[in-house]
């Protein structure tokens, strides 16, 4: 119980006079945020992501080197004071490339999950709410899509769409739909039968009001965890796609693509593969930690 421990130690420092900080209503956004703030690891994740976004946007302004400037005199230079992370095979500064490349990984993560969450939630909500034939059609289609491992589906789709930043987003976005749709449908089905919906009906709430005020907010809360975890997964999948030559293409400093080209120099210049992978890991880890904290906050069963 980290939160009470923190609270108690804070309280103890002030002579035990101050009552523990009051938390917002369970399940509200504010409450989730308060829980994240109490979890040092999750807070570290939030900070890491924010720092990465800010550095990635500002890096062209404060870094000495541009991410795309080729300088053959410093090709494959090992890390030094001049080039903190060293240089790649064309003498491009790896630090600049990694910071710029955060744009790709993070935006692929956010945008592809935005696609799969929006479409998945809409499909799942439609299937769950209307039931009957709509449910049958949607669910059978999703059954077929779920017959593919997600990365395989993404690879098949990008084989058709071709490579590139936008196509990578579509491929990952589409392949993530079934997961969200199934969860949303299951949530809607449980909520539809609960007492508070019945109560709302009995006090003559309109159907629209029931859906918007009662069903959707309750069905979406558990999906927030999924969103955070999916961003982590999508970032990982995006770098895998780029690594095997699909997804974002080489001159662009996407981390997976950087690893793919650095692979040929593994014997002599291991620093070239060290850093991009480390940054993939840090960003994925951050989203996972945030997701974990949100789950703890939303799922009272796992609380101790």
């Amino acid at each position, binding site marked *: 119980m980290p939160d009470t421990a923190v609270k108690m130690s804070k309280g103890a420092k002030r002579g035990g006079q101050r009552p523990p900080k009051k938390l917002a209503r369970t399940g509200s956004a504010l409450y989730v945020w308060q829980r994240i703030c109490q979890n040092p690891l999750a807070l570290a994740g939030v900070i890491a992501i924010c720092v990465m976004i800010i550095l990635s946007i500002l890096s062209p302004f404060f870094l000495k080197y541009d991410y795309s400037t080729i300088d053959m005199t410093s090709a494959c230079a090992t890390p030094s004071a001049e080039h903190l992370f060293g240089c790649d095979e064309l003498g491009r500064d790896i630090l600049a490339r990694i910071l710029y490349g955060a744009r790709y990984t993070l935006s692929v993560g956010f945008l592809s999950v935005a696609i799969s969450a929006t479409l998945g939630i809409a499909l799942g909500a439609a299937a769950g709410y209307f039931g009957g034939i709509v449910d049958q059609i949607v669910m059978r289609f999703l059954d077929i899509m779920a*017959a*593919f*491992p997600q990365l395989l589906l993404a690879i098949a789709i990008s084989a058709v769409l071709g490579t590139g930043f936008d196509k990578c987003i579509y491929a990952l976005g589409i392949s993530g739909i079934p997961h969200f749709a199934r969860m949303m449908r299951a949530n809607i089905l449980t909520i539809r039968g609960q007492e508070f919906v019945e109560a709302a009906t009995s006090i003559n709430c309109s159907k629209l009001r029931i859906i918007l005020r009662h069903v959707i907010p309750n069905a979406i809360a558990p999906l927030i965890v999924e969103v955070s975890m999916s961003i982590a997964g999508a970032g990982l999948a995006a770098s*895998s796609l780029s*690594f095997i*030559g699909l997804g974002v293409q080489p001159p662009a400093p996407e981390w997976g693509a950087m690893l793919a080209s650095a692979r040929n120099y593994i014997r002599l210049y291991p620093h070239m*593969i060290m850093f991009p992978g480390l940054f993939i890991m840090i960003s994925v880890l951050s989203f996972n930690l945030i997701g974990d904290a949100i789950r703890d906050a939303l799922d009272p069963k*796992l609380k101790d």
Partner: protein
Amino acid sequence: MSKYVLKRVLLMIPILIGVAIMIFTLMFFVPGDPAEIILGNAATEAQVIAVREQLGLNQPYIVRLGSFLKELFFHGSFGNSYIYGTDVGTELMSRFPKTLALAAFSILLSTVIGIPLGIRAATHANRAEDRVSMFISMVGVSMPNFWLALMLVLLFSLKLGWLPSSGAKGWQYYILPVLANALGGIAGIARLTRSSMLEVIRADYVTTARAKGVPEHSVIYKHALPNALIPIITICGGRFGGQLGGTMVIETVFSIPGIGAYLINSINNRDYNAVQGSVLYIAFTFGVVMLLVDLIYAYVDPRIKAQYEGQSKKRVKKVKGVGAGA
């Protein structure tokens, strides 16, 4: 129970057909003319037309889909590779054992290490040991497996020279790929086992067992663990199925001639018949594995078994009740 098995197996058929139709349709929209890919750049117009005619590429979508499905389900044929002219099915069959070995050993290692770690974390919940191991496993889940693979190659092949870095000529070639592949699994399964165990440990029957003086060791391993393992089976099965399709990145790193490497190679060569074949092959295997997992799940979980066995009993009861009323 046999009713359940039959139902699940029959439900599998439309899904397989659906998967085939979906992949065919996807590949139908691939830009580029297969005839030109087969013949290469030097082909004349007449040759291209001849090959198109020969492969039936001029026919409408529905006709081509029909003949594709017929070939697939009645003759078990995936067609020929555009580039090499070889039969895709034979190629996949010869590559399958390597992918299977990689996936099977990875999942074996993941469960053998992951489950005990998870149990230990759960029994020491919220102590330093638990927190540290859960943080490490979170790092493990977040680590890209191809990067870990490169790091392992760097350490064990290039620096220490203990293990080969590529190929698949013997068991020692599989050590690094399996390690790289299994780490994410170990971490994931450990996390899942922990949360599953924590949920079970708070159940009433565990409290009962403790209350009547059952030794703690036996409470954990005899009362809690079997119940906690039920959801883990699904995850392990899902991971195994996913591994069959997901080893492709690892296969490329270690140049293991498995199905994944074939798929990626085919995509790069624009050999779309081979792409279609390998995607189908992996999806079918995945589907079958998931079916098996569901059947095992039903076998292990008494609740599902009871659902199907209960039906006939209920009917008997009803008849009895009616009889008593009359």
